[in-house]
């Protein structure tokens, strides 16, 4: 039991009224398991990840991480949780322009106040693990889209989180590179015992998932894995 979303409801202001993006959603993500979240565009998938990542506070419901409810935490505590316990991979590879691939990872250790030498070694291992050992010194503009996404994944794992949240990791990639990213996520999830929640619009990806949750109009229900 690593990350549980219990009965989460989220609304956004929408003109005079409110738009319900998540309607009493419940979702369980367990260590070593890849949970896929599918659904049409605008159904609330990214909102779900944002709630799980503590980037938005839901109107009601619980976001439990190892039994602790993250909803009640203040901003400082939530920042810490994101730094130390949750890895986030964004829809577009959001890297920092001035940093090399290696530094995209070591900055995470710097945020956590960790000594640079140990961090450097771990960062190199991680880059190796995502197949980018040889590109450690390159900046984002010197990397391909797929490579950038791999760096983002490695960065998400740098501070050894128990949960990895991934939003449409392949939306900017062709199907071959997309499949490779999926393989990578599958492998890392198993090897590292991660509770991975991956949003996708690509039904082909479901074959890799242990659980599949479909969201339609903010309402979630489990699907049998493909």
């Amino acid at each position, binding site marked *: 039991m690593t990350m549980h979303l219990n009965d989460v409801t989220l609304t956004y202001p929408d003109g005079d009224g409110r738009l319900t993006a998540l309607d009493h959603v419940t979702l369980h993500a367990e260590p070593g398991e890849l949970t896929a979240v599918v659904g049409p565009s605008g159904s609330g998938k990214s909102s779900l990840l*944002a709630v799980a990542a503590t980037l938005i506070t839901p109107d009601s419901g619980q976001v439990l991480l190892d039994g602790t409810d993250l909803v009640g935490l203040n901003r400082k505590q939530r920042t810490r949780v994101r*730094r*130390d316990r949750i890895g986030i991979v*964004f*829809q577009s590879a959001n890297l*920092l*322009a001035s940093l090399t691939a290696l530094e995209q990872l070591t900055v*995470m250790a710097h945020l*956590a106040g960790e000594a640079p030498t140990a961090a450097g070694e771990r960062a190199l291992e991680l880059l190796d693990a995502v197949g980018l050992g040889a590109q450690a010194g390159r900046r984002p503009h010197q990397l391909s889209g797929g490579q950038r996404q791999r760096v983002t994944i490695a960065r998400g794992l740098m501070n050894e989180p128990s949960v990895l949240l991934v939003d449409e990791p392949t939306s900017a990639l062709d199907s071959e590179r997309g499949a490779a990213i999926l393989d990578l996520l599958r492998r890392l999830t198993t090897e590292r015992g991660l509770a991975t929640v991956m949003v996708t619009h690509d039904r082909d990806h479901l074959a890799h998932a242990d659980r599949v949750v479909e969201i339609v109009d903010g309402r979630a229900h489990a699907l049998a894995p493909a």
Partner: protein
Amino acid sequence: MFVALRDLKFAKGRFALMGTVVTLITLLVVLLSGLTAGLGRENISAITDLDADHLVFAAPAADQDISFSDSVIPAQTQADWADVAGVAAVEPLALGMTRAESGARTTGVAFFAVDEASALPPVAVRSGEVVLAEQAAEDLGVAAGGTVTVGGVELEVAAVAGSDSYSHAPVAWISDADRPMTGTAPDAATVLAIRVGTADLAAADAALGTETVTVADSLNAIGSYSSENGSLQLMRGLLLAISALVIGAFFTVWTVQRSPEIAILKAVGASTGYLVRDAVGQAFVLLLFGTGLGAALAAGLGAVAATVVPFVLGPATVLLPAALLVVLGLVGAAASLRRIATVDPLTALGAAR
């Protein structure tokens, strides 16, 4: 300063541009400071160097300020001040502007006329003698032992001493007996230079119709000084304000451009404090380089300029303005920090608007 330092290197061009602006502003401020101090020194050094802590002026009319050109202290008042308890030394000083000649050469000098026994001049002057500041001797091409005419009176140069000047003219120390005509009684002084022990100055002023001020406060009684210094200081102040605004504007634009990256860093767990430290450190590095270079350039230029224009090169005119620019630049940069606090990490998630 993990990201900040790498940004400095990565966005070299942009920071070099801003650094150049800081350098040029520093250059301007330091040169102006040196010039202000140099002009000021030409105006006031003879007064600030007086061996006295207070100056006694004739009390001006109610709506007027004390002034060296208007003050007249008659002999009786001088005698009365000498009797005031708790005043250590009372030295009458009559001063004014006049012409000095030697052969075909002439120059404007400030004559400082004192009693023969007076301790005010660098070297005591007797009747028939003059003690010239170096600049005056140089302008007139005379040395000790030569003769000059000061205000129409022929005098022997007893010594060339000191570099004091008053109202942009070098000082000629003369004896009271040789004082040029000024339209006041020959035994009246302009001011009394005094050293105060325990005296009740306010009571003495009230009783004797005078106004006693510290030497520092007396400088504004030099007409040319207060207006000149005032406008130069105003320019300096404006330059400092402009630099704070320019730096503030630069960092505000930079922060706005950088907000997507700030959002990413916040999303992956950077606190606002961490990001603010990063940004302040970056501004500090930029300012340190910019002002350091500017101050070094200005010191070099100032050293050259000092040979032709009045220019003071020293910690107060080089390091102080540079330090002030660093502080004001940081204040300007701090204005952009508010934006760091307001960046929402949610925007890093991209799709969720």
